[in-house]
């Protein structure tokens, strides 16, 4: 996981990058690459540990891996029983490219007005198989 360090705009540095609801003029990636949630409680980790506001987020099942990927909110971290039952979406794995011409299942959320309104710290990812790593990309307008 790679997170670029952006200038904090709040006095207490409670978040990095632009404030929620803002709209800048340059699109930058703030989160790219395989995302490892294996050390998080319940195996469900937020995309960022401090609030970070994005305009676009994309999560893709990692080609070649074999587990479903559940996406949801903070309730996944302390869910009892099936963690996926606390999610709002699941991605099917793409282990051998035998379905849909090899396309991976993907979830995309974007703000239609290109505002930085998506708080990445409130989006949790849970790979059904611990250690698997969905591909995450998030963009901010700074």
């Amino acid at each position, binding site marked *: 996981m790679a997170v670029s360090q952006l200038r904090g705009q709040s006095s207490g540095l409670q978040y990095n990058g632009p404030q929620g609801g803002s709209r800048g003029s340059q699109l930058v990636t703030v989160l790219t690459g395989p995302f490892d949630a294996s050390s998080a409680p319940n195996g469900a980790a937020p995309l960022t540990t401090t609030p970070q506001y994005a305009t676009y987020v994309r999560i893709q099942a990692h080609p070649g891996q074999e587990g479903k990927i559940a996406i949801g909110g903070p309730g996944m971290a302390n869910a009892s029983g099936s963690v996926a039952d606390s999610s709002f979406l699941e991605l099917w794995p793409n282990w051998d490219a035998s*379905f849909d011409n090899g396309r991976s*299942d993907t979830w995309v959320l974007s703000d*239609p007005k290109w505002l930085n309104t998506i708080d990445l710290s409130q989006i949790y990812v849970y790979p059904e198989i611990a250690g698997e790593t969905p591909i995450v990309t998030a963009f901010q307008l700074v």
Partner: protein
Amino acid sequence: MLLLTPSAASGPFTVNGAPAPIASSSTLVNQVSVKPRLGQWSKILIGGPNLGTDESNAMAILYPVPNGGQADAFVLQDQGGQNTIDLSQIYVYATIPGDSPMVEAFGYQTL
């Protein structure tokens, strides 16, 4: 600040034998999507209050995803950036009672 946040109505939506609204009271959001639950065998019907179990008045019919591949999905978003979609007016029906399509809804909140 303005944030796009998940609706409380998001999550597995269990349908028991009849079309049901995603929310029981008026709930305005910016985006909603409905997908079959991976591994389940229901066709999923989506419509308004007049949705019939015989597929009458369906605005979308989603095929199940029993064994791999991308799930079919119904996605609706207000491109003007407003909360204009009332979840209480969107009904979902699963052809196998007890199946639980996944509902994802996001709305703007000012915090």
